[in-house]
Structures are given as C-alpha cells and as structure tokens.
C-alpha cells in the first residue's frame, strides 16, 4: 500500500522496501517488561503473557484502589477488632475476577476470540493472576491486622481465603454464563452479602461463615462453579 518517495529511483538490485522494513522492525520493536518476560517464560506463550498484562483488573489504578481499600480495612480491623479485611477481601477479588475478561470489559474481545491462543486460556490465566494478587494483598492486610500467632494461618484460611475462592468462582461462572462482567460482580457480591448476613443473623455480628465445617461446602461450591465455567467456554462439537 505504501510507496515512500524516492524508492522508484533506487538501483534495481537494491530492495529499499526490504531495508526500510528491517530498520523499522528494529526501531519499533517493543521491549517487554520483566513481569511480561517472566509470565512468557512460565506460560511458554508470549501471546498469553501479553494477554495477561493487559488484564483490565490488573491495571495500576485498579491495584492501587484495592491496596487502599484493604489498607483501610486492616487499619479498622487492628483498631476496633471488626473483621473488615475478612469481609472485604472476597468481595474485592470477586469484582476483579469478573472484570478480568469478557465482552464490554476487554475492548478487543471479539478479535481475541478469533485468535489461536484460546480465549479459555486467556480467561484462566487472567483469573488466576487476579486471584493470586488479591490473595497476596489480603494476606498482607491480614498480617497487619492479625496478631501473629499459632492461630493466624487458620484464621486467614477459614476467615476469607476459602470463602474468597468460592465467591470468585461464583463471580466467574455468572460472568461467563451471562457474558456480562456486571452480572458476575452482582452475583459475587450478592452471594457474599447473603453469606455474611446469614452468619450475622446467627452470631449477632457481621462476619463470614468461617467454621472449619464449612471447608468442604465452600470447596464443593467453587468446584461446581468451575465446572460451569468449563462447560460455558467449551468448543461446540458436531456442527462441522
């Protein structure tokens, strides 16, 4: 399409277009950041690594907002004893998961669906990355607000990590089925609110159902939601 001025005047044995393209390729070449290089090495796919670093809910503004909310929650928890970190962490992670990928969230969603790197893999690595980051931030907030002792790990695990897994899985399943991040967020936050209110009704204070007897139900629920996501993102068969 492009014919730059002067190319016609080049000697016949000189491929000015080829030279120009080779120079442009080097000048325009993008240098991936250290995180993207690490992700590319771990995932064995530069495309998947690039898709990971474009996750909307891993952008700097979103991460700063999560840090601020969890930081405030940690301050309140350590000052008053109200378990705000345990209440906030699952809700924040669920919203992050729902806003990780999908129509209306990822601008190039339609194009991405036509790519060799499957959108199921994009969804999976983005969900894992958001979950991992939120879990790390939640752990940091818990470390600040909890007295470090023998019961701290159990308090974190049963207090919000397991419920967070289940709530994130619910948000992901709802967003995938409805093809709407907002529906995913609504389902995740709604499910978490019901859990908290139900626990509050029986104990008299707002907290999650954190007894160790709820481990299996939380994990089973998360597994069911995971199965729904796999089913909803399957490749239809028998039509070709």
């Amino acid at each position, binding site marked *: *399409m*492009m014919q*730059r001025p002067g190319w016609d005047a080049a000697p016949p044995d000189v491929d000015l*277009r080829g030279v*120009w*393209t*080779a120079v*442009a*390729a*080097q000048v*325009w*070449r*993008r240098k991936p950041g250290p995180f993207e290089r690490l992700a590319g090495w771990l995932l064995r*796919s*530069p*495309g998947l690594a*690039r*898709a990971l670093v*474009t996750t909307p809910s891993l952008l700097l503004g979103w991460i700063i907002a999560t840090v601020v909310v969890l930081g405030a929650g940690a301050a309140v928890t350590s000052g008053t004893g109200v378990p705000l970190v345990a209440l906030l962490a699952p809700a924040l992670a669920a919203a992050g998961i729902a806003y990780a990928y999908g129509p209306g969230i*990822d*601008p*190039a*969603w*339609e*194009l*991405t*669906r*036509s*790519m*060799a*790197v*499957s959108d199921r893999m994009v969804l999976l690595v983005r969900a894992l990355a958001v979950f991992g980051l939120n879990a790390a931030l939640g752990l940091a907030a818990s470390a600040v607000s909890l007295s470090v002792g023998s019961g701290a790990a159990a308090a974190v695990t049963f207090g919000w990590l397991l419920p967070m897994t289940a709530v994130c899985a619910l948000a992901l399943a709802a967003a995938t089925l409805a093809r709407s991040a907002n529906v995913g967020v609504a389902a995740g936050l709604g499910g978490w609110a019901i859990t908290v209110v139900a626990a509050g009704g029986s104990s008299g204070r707002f907290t999650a159902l954190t007894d160790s007897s709820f481990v299996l139900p939380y994990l089973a629920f998360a597994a069911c939601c995971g199965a729904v996501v796999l089913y909803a993102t399957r*490749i*239809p*068969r*028998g*039509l*070709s």
Partner: protein
Amino acid sequence: MNVEIAGLTRHFGRNQAVAGVDLEAGPGVFGLLGPNGAGKTSLLRMMATVLSPSSGKMRLLDRDPGSYGPRREIRRRLGYLPQNLGYYPSFTVVEFVEYFALLKEMPAARVPAAVATAVERADLGDKARAKLRTLSGGMLRRVGIAQAIVNDPELLLLDEPTAGLDPEQRVAFRALLRDLGERATVVVSTHLVEDVGAACTEVALMNAGKIVFRGTPEQLTARGEGHGVGDAPLERGYSAVLTEARS
C-alpha cells in the same frame, strides 16, 4: 478450496440471521454484498470461528473448525477484521498489531519484521508509535487491517474494511486487496458496491440470510441492464437482484 460451506444456518432466538448458505471459495477476492441485516456479518463471524453455527457444515483451509486442534491451526492462518474493532486506547499502533501477532502464535523472532511489514502495507508508518486514542476513525480502520494481515493469512475476512477511509485510501486499499487475493482467499463484506467492482474477482449478494446471487461483478452488472434504480451499472445490478429476491 479454502472455504467450503454447506447448509450453514445461525439463529439468534427466533431470528434467523443465516438461513442455509452454501459457499465455496478459493484464492481471490470475494465480495459479500447485501443490505443491513442480510446476514453478512453473522456469516463472516462464523467463518472467523467467533460464532458457532446452529446447523450445517463448514470447512476452512481444508480443516474442520469444530475440533480444537484444526480450529487452532485455522486461526493461525486467519486474518479477521470485525465490523466494530475494539482497541486498547493506551496501546501504540505497533503494540496493537504485535499483540495480535503474538495471539496468532507467530514465532516470536518473526514478529517485529511482520509487524513492520503490516504497518507499512496499511500506510501507517508515520503513526507507528502513536497511541490508538489519538487516531482518527479511518486510521483505526487501517490499524485493524494491519492486525488482520500481520500473519500473511491464507484466509482473510474483512467486515466493512473501507468504512471511514477517504477516497485516496480506498483506492490504495483496493490495490492491497488485489495483491492479497493473488495468494489468499479474501472475503470482503461491504455496502460499497464500487469496492466490489474495483477489487473483487467474485461476488455474492445476500438477502434475508440467503445468498441470492453468485457470480462475477460483470455478471452482476449484466443483471442490472434495463433496471432503473441505481447510479452506476453495478448498483443497478445489485438493486435488480434484490428487487427480484424480495418479490
């Protein structure tokens, strides 16, 4: 044949967008014409493996897109420009084209040269490092074309590629289409009949989810002889075929 389609349908609830399309296409530029709602975009989306058919058979690049492995191989060799191109406003032109080169699983070492070639072919060399949010609608369309051709596709699907291009750019784009069509199957969905006349070796006209005409642009022109509606001969052919199909 790069495209083999038989009895392809697609429903959206009660609405039948594609109602039994049969189509075969080899290398060349294939124009897909039709009024709004004729089913062109749905057909193109199914060929891009973005949308699943409701029924029918489809083989692309001699592979079955219904199975994971062949589907992935098709996608490596496919170029697709959707009607509504979504983009990341903070990406530069080169970053955007490179992103899709990587998602098409091009070997990483080949990507910089392929990106530079695609950007130059789309006449975007002067804007290579410009952020997408600073570009006009016509330039964004060319960015979409650049990402579609970055892998030198064997099957190129373009939905309204000339929307937003100025006349000079459209003339240059038609030349690019003809060049691409010498090796690949290029399917162009468009409202602009003159694009079809200038660039396409074959044309199909869709109405109400079905192909109601298939032939060369000259044959379509011939169908318009004596028909009063339309300013140009090809437009009269288009109008004549549609009038006949609707009656």
